[in-house]
């Protein structure tokens, strides 16, 4: 626990959240407000390579991952990145750190774009000292490990856009990026739309391919040059490694994504769709984002029907794509799907075959340190949350008991849409979702416009325009405190706050790299 921070080194940010001044040895800027921070300087960059140092025949294959790592000059303490486009079916991250362990490397930092329960073996690597700490989403067993205060460094939770920002700004320097590719050629061009492990887009790895010192592509489906489309360009790739299997297709994409059967969630989804319609957001040329969660899918289903009835067509829909969005594209209810990740086989096929189903990177969609990002152009976005407070601040990373539960994903970046709707149940079993103060602040309330629960819809008072627009509709618009009071009455009073320990175990970054909040250890 040598590199633990003492609470004396904490400082309150503008939202009065105590945050560490130094994280994993790096000086931090405390959160300064949604648009409060202006970074100075130039972007980071990898060393300049020379083509003469690479095979003229374009064949960058080496025999194995350990060989490739050694050829990349792997050393103790380096930062290694992988990506989550295989979700819970990823083999490559575990393969990578098993190889590092065999090579005797220590104190590595794992920098995934997200982690999943399949990455539980990382705990053994951390205990053995192979991995020092993880900067990326922490949930399931890894979340517990971190929440219990067992990780040596601090967890750093970033949004997808924030991860691009951190790489681009040089906050995180990737020594070696390892990109799992469902389809690649010997030169290193790679895509996610062909091959047995097809997942759609590889763009979560795009920043790594541009900014890492060294880049390894790992594939189980090698094709002769050129691998088209080249979502990852071989010109950025050092080595190509062929293995038997890079992932479990059944866990990468599901054959069928299913709409929730929960009556309460369906009710919430229907109200969200009606809100979007009645507030006048659903109009010709509009855009919306809906993810692959059961409630989001149901929202898309209801909205689709309303669009049909009203004869309204969207300009673009922002995915997480699924067959439900693909049906809308085919039916002409939207001109484009701008897709961040693909959740089922129909989505993958559509991205491969339909030029209007476009894979997008966190750079185009989400990066706050860019010359704009299209997340701000989306008219309405529907998101989840674990908790919302009466000032509309929201939490997605921890459970009400304080334990790490989810990564941020694109959630923070989506808050910049024209209208941000959180679709959440008012209570989960006995746990109220609307609270006095969120356990972990992940999204500032000034960006959260509407909360839709099965007990009513609360509109942020800052959005008097929305309140005005749904006046006279038969939607159950209520004060957020009314819903809170009602649910607390049902649950038997206010929930007790988590039994927080005195130790910061992780931080939540804002989209600009400043520190929004701390996650604390929790006493069992």
């Amino acid at each position, binding site marked *: 626990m040598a590199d633990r921070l003492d609470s004396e080194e904490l400082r309150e940010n503008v939202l009065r959240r105590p945050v560490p001044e130094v994280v994993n040895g790096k000086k931090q800027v405390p959160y300064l407000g949604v648009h409060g921070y202006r970074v100075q300087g130039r972007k980071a960059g990898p060393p300049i390579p020379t083509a003469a140092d690479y095979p003229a025949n374009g064949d960058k294959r080496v025999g194995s991952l350990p060989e490739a790592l050694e050829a990349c000059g792997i050393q103790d303490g380096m930062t290694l990145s992988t990506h989550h486009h295989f979700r819970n079916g990823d083999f490559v991250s575990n393969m990578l750190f098993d190889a590092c362990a065999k090579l005797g490397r220590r104190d590595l930092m794992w920098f995934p774009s997200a982690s999943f329960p399949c990455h539980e073996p990382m705990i053994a690597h951390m205990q053995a000292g192979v991995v020092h700490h993880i900067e990326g989403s922490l949930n399931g067993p890894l979340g517990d490990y971190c929440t219990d205060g067992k990780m040596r460094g601090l967890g750093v939770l970033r949004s997808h856009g924030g991860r691009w920002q951190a790489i681009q700004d040089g906050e995180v320097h990737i020594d070696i990026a390892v990109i799992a590719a469902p389809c690649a050629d010997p030169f290193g061009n790679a895509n996610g739309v062909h091959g047995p492990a097809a997942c759609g887009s590889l763009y979560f790895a795009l920043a790594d391919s541009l900014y890492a010192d060294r880049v390894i592509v790992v594939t189980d489906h090698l094709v002769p040059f050129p691998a088209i489309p080249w979502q990852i360009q071989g010109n950025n790739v050092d080595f190509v490694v062929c293995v038997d299997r890079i992932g479990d297709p059944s866990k990468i994409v599901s054959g069928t994504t299913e709409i929730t059967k929960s*009556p*309460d969630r*369906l*009710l919430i989804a229907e109200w969200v769709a009606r809100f979007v319609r009645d507030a006048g957001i659903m109009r010709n040329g509009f855009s919306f984002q809906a993810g692959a969660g059961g409630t989001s899918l149901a929202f898309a289903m209801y909205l689709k029907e309303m669009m049909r009835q009203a004869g309204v067509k969207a300009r673009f829909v922002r995915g997480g794509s699924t067959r439900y969005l693909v049906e809308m594209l085919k039916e002409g209810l939207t001109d484009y799907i701008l897709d961040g990740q693909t959740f089922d086989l129909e989505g993958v096929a559509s991205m491969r075959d339909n030029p209007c189903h476009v894979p997008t990177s966190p750079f185009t969609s989400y990066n706050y340190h860019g010359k704009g990002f299209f997340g701000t152009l989306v008219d309405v976005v529907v998101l989840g949350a674990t908790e919302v407070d009466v000032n509309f601040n929201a939490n997605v990373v921890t459970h*009400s*008991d*304080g334990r790490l539960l989810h990564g941020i994903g694109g959630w923070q970046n989506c808050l910049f849409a024209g209208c941000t709707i959180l679709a959440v149940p008012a*209570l*989960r*079993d*006995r*746990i109220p979702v609307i609270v006095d103060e969120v356990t972990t602040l992940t999204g500032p309330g000034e960006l959260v416009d509407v909360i839709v629960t*099965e*007990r009513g819809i609360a509109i942020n008072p800052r959005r008097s325009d929305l309140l005005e627009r749904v006046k006279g509709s*038969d939607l159950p618009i209520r004060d957020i405190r009314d819903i809170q009071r009602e649910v607390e*009455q*049902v*649950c*038997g*009073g206010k*929930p*007790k706050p*988590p*039994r927080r320990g005195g130790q910061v175990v992780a931080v939540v970054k804002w989209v600009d790299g400043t520190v929004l909040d701390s996650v604390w250890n*929790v006493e069992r």
Partner: protein
Amino acid sequence: MNPVFEAGQRGEKVRSDCWVRLEPRTSGGLELCVTSKVDAMYGDAVRATCRTVLEALGVRDAVVTVEDAGALDFVLAARIEAVVKRAGLGNDTAFLPPPGPGFGTRTTRERFRRSRLYLPGNEPKHFLNASQHKPDAIILDLEDSVAPPAKDAARLLVRNALRVVDFGQCERMVRINQGERGLADLDAVVPQNVHVILIPKVESAEQVQAVDARAEKVRLAAGLESPCFLMPIIESALGCFNALAIATASPNIVALTIGLEDYTADLGAQRTPEGRESFWARQVVVNAARAAGVTPIDTVFSDFSDMEGLRQSVLEAKALGFEGKGCIHPRQVPVVHEAFAPSSEEVEKAKRIVLAFQDAERRGLGVVALGSKMVDPPVVKRALRTVLMAEALALLPKDWQSLTEMSSTSGRAH
């Protein structure tokens, strides 16, 4: 080894419920061991509730283990009471949680009963949000959806739910068990302001009268003013033949309904989507109900993924004369309401009849006429109901009469 007793539910998928294990002993006091999914937020509250209930029930010496999966207090109390009763312990009293905000609601004989949502009586997770889906009624079911070994526990759970859960504007119904067990159900639930008792598998007027007598007795003993209404369910060939006697068995009957799963099984027929095998039975129920002056209500539609099938089924029911449908999933409710809603033609016609009726009343005429045509009283009554429903569904503004009169006075001036 002492005998042990259990109640409630446990396992990965269990939510909003708990499992209680009780081991009686002769000395050593009360030992309580609680694990809870909501320990951090409500662990202390859960422990306090468990202790309060055990002490109130007079349990002095026992080892009690509770595995809580987010159960609310009324659920914890019902499960503990169930295990205490199973163990034959305690002072034989009931632990009644304090009544919640929705406890005192009333009903009327005439209210809409288009949709009634079945809630399995031993599944507390479905109770809390049931009224958010706005069915006309909720039914806490003690009969077919509760497995025989859980009947005693479900009865206590439903009793507590009726006290505590806010069912909003929904009519509060309970489907009791058959026979003696059903009569004993009444002792537990009737004092908790049940609006309507559903009586299953009714084949004779005597069955209804037995329930009615017991319910009345319990109601009066509890000092409740409003009558406990009844809705017999006909589910057999014999029930069909006695339908009129059943429908007229008690003045407390407000509706008559039919259960087609059991009915088709009784016939030895397959239940088909077209429903030809039950056509006669449904007509019998409609006719018996109308003859008795109570509301005819159709069976449930059991494929909750087939919303179009449901819509067709409701339209058919409406065409046969039914005014309500059973729902097994909350999402069926809006579809049922929509399909039962009067069409715009129906509303227009009803408006004209109602205006003519009021006109006749104003002028002291005994006969209602629309143009040159006489309108019979039952038609007027139906038109009034159609208009009422249209108003309730916002198909018709509440002030439609003044609007209509303004636009039509000139036309009627001759």
